[in-house]
């Protein structure tokens, strides 16, 4: 009996440890995204190089979390909420790793853009969108670390804001490219930066979905609020 209690307590600690490691990984991913945006906004080559170099750390963290989660599943065979917490940690680590990849990609494009003529108006728009996305990532991670359903649902509901920023930036970039073909190269890179930011925003929404699943055991039902009609860039279905 006492043996059993001991095992249970120890198991709880293991799960706590897993969550702590995901939270720390989230902090690194958050910083990578923020630094990548700043590198673009300030044309900071050294910072962009740092971001590219630090991406390995996230890969290592994901690997560790995966190993621990798989160990828990195979040795402890968790059920109900314990299983959900373990699976959520697995999902989170893979989302955060990909978030880091997008940050790295943004930083790499920052290195290229820094060589071109400054496009202050455009980089300001990118910075605005970047701040919005950073804020959503922060809110989603706050919701995850404190298992706050309300906060997660707020992130989930306000997804449209990022999409609309992306659509608006898309149009702005097209206008610039049509107006001055010499800018096409830099603008194309900024377009990918905007797309990467939009993806990171989607990941924040995914994190909110994971929090909902972890806390309630159910998927979110219903549709996210979306605009009626289509006027943004049309994307091919995957």
């Amino acid at each position, binding site marked *: 009996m006492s043996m059993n209690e001991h095992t249970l307590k120890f198991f709880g600690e293991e799960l706590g440890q897993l969550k702590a*490691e995901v939270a*720390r990984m989230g902090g690194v991913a958050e*910083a990578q995204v923020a630094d990548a945006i700043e590198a673009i906004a300030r044309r900071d080559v050294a910072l962009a190089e740092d971001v590219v170099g630090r991406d390995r750390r996230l890969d290592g963290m994901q690997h560790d979390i995966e190993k621990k989660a798989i160990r828990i599943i195979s040795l402890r065979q968790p059920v109900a909420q314990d299983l959900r917490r373990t699976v959520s940690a697995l999902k989170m680590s893979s989302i955060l790793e990909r978030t880091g990849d997008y940050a790295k990609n943004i930083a790499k494009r920052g290195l290229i853009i820094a060589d071109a003529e400054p496009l202050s108006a455009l980089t300001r728009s990118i910075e605005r969108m970047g701040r919005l996305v950073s804020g959503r990532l922060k*809110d989603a*991670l706050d919701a995850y670390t404190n298992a706050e359903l309300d906060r997660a649902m707020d992130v989930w509901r306000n997804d449209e*804001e990022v999409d*609309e920023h992306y659509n608006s930036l898309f149009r702005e970039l097209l206008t610039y490219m049509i107006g001055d073909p010499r800018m096409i190269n830099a603008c194309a890179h900024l377009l990918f930066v905007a797309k990467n930011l939009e993806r990171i925003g989607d990941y924040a929404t995914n994190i909110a979905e994971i929090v909902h699943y972890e806390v309630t055991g159910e998927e979110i039902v219903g549709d996210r*609020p979306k605009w009626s009609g289509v006027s943004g860039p049309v994307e091919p279905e995957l």
Partner: protein
Amino acid sequence: MLPQVSTLPNPQSPAADQGLDERGRVLTWLKSPLGVALLAAVLLGVLAAAGRADPQWSAGAALLVLALGVGAGWRLERRSSATAAFRLRPDDPPTPPPDEVQTYVLALELAPNPVLLVSAEDADDIAGRRVVFANAEARELLRIEREGALLVTALRDPDLLEAIDEALFGHIPQVLSYEARGAQERFWRVWTKPLPPNARHARLALVIMRDETDTRRNERMRADFLANASHELRTPLASLTGFIETLRGHARDDATARERFLLIMSRQAERMARLIDDLLSLSRIELNEHIRPGGHCDLSLAVADVLDALAPQIAVKHVRLELDLVSSGAAEIVGDRDQIVQVVQNLLDNAVKYAPDGGVVRVSVTRDLTLESATASRPDDVRQIAPGGGRMPLLTPARNGAARYALLRVDDGGPGMAREHLPRLTERFYRVEGQKSGERSGTGLGLAIVKHIVNRHMGGFYVESAPDHGAAFSIYLPMTSRSMQLAEAGPRVAASHEPRAA
């Protein structure tokens, strides 16, 4: 017992040895049964005072005070009186007297800077780093809900975590800056310092934060202001210079042309003055954006006041107003009255400006809404289904479960805007194509000002629009508890203002 005050180590005595010696004694004292007894007494004393402080934090706070006492014991000068807090005599344990500990705990609790005490076990064990004490500021800032919370749930920034680790495991103090992102950006200077171990925790670190948002904002505002002012004033200035040259040149003797040019010039000068006013006002608002407003303001009354002031413009355009306001006192919100009036003024001013001649502007104030109902779309709103239309949040507040909101909605019945413009409306100087600033005479800062003021007031802001179906701007702000307690709003003021004679 003679008062023997000495703040500097005596050059004749081996000061370093003495210090070490005392430290050794402190540690033995902490480990000795007497120490444990004293610790218990201290904890009991603090818990007895739990009427003032949150009990679950008091234990951690007492430990922090003890730890600080141990640290301070080496340094603080010896005092003669019996109430001296710290003593250097070897047989006196260097700790504040138990009956004073609660005062020290309270002092830390009330300190304006966030203070945290972090403990750790193994270096590898990230879940072993716990917040064993956090004062009121730190608990609010980092949303720490219980003693012993995981450090990573409060702070995730990798640089900061690294600095705390260096204090815990390398005994290295550090100073660094930390930026809290999100809707309300804050900049912090953070000190991390190692603390000597105590009976319960083998490794301890102190984290102290200082808010440097003001300084950072000041720097950024100055740069932004200069950039914006120089850029935006260049165009009207160029036109003024052009007219002056024309007046000196071929228009010198043409009285009609001179009159016309002078009229245009005076309009340009007025616009420049308005631009500078708006820029200055935006800078001031942004500087205080992270400081919560005190005071209260009635939204319905603010609308009525602004409408009175706008009467001449309303009359000139023959705009009809449809009002649906809750009675005064029913929609009282927490806020700076001047700033709220400025928000209402900017929204109503825009609505009158963009409404067609003889059109209808609808203004409504509703109360006691949850976040969900304040942001809900109206199913009967044609803009939800019109092509290229919809609803766009421009600012969404952090959720505050207890808050009830009062909502102001201003619908201009004007030309409306396509959706691609909506997310950018609060950008400084953003212009919707086809709406020339000259004929509208705006500065391009009005909605930016609205957004920053509403953000300061923990409120939200959104727009609903569709081409040819007008634009409706809505702001919602947390109500005062006094106003929330009003069960029923009084009679609504539903009125239709007819334009007065121009």
